[in-house]
């Protein structure tokens, strides 16, 4: 099944907005729904770079996209791989797949088609700042970023 005309229009809109807010991000493998990703680099205020991958859901824009941090390999302040933490409430992490960290950004019950990729990435940008705060202080990430009510 190919993208519907609404989904194609939505993808164009998403990439237009991304080009304004996160210009390094681009859409890849966009032909087949379920395989498309948006990938790019984010830089923290301290200047560290992170490669982010957002998986475009096949039912765009009706479900929460999976967002992964592809590189660098993230470790916590104590040297443990974040992947090894598995799902982590305090670190806002979902179950990792393929050895890559997944960020919990929106719960399914709070998702709506009005949320754009750019809004999602804005949360990831805040998560990165909180992650670096964790590296400095040892506080878990939810010391900096609260949780959505279930």
């Amino acid at each position, binding site marked *: 099944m190919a993208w519907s005309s609404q989904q194609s229009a939505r993808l164009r809109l998403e990439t237009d907005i991304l080009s304004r807010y996160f210009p390094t991000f681009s859409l890849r493998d966009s032909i087949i729904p379920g395989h498309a990703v948006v990938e790019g680099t*984010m830089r923290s205020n301290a200047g560290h770079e992170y490669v982010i991958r957002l998986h475009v859901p096949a039912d765009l824009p009706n479900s929460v996209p999976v967002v992964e941090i592809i590189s660098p390999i993230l470790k916590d302040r104590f040297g443990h791989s974040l992947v090894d933490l598995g799902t982590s409430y305090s670190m806002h992490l979902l179950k990792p797949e393929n050895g890559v960290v997944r960020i919990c950004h929106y719960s399914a019950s709070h998702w709506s088609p009005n949320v754009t990729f750019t809004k999602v990435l804005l949360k990831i940008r805040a998560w990165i700042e909180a992650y670096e705060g964790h590296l400095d202080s040892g506080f878990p990430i939810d010391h900096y*970023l609260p949780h959505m009510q279930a």
Partner: protein
Amino acid sequence: MEEKDSKSVQDHLTQITQGKQTTKKLVFDPRTQELILVDVKAPQVSPDAVTADDPTRDGFFAR
């Protein structure tokens, strides 16, 4: 006055998370890709800057 050092930004996030009142807000400036702390009543740092700590459904982790 703008602040964008990591420590200030992280302290602000902590305050928001703890539900404390603050006179600052966090904005994302797409030109520099930085998160910047500005006074709540300050003018926009750039035309495209967006609030990044809005404690509502869409803006942040919390509602």
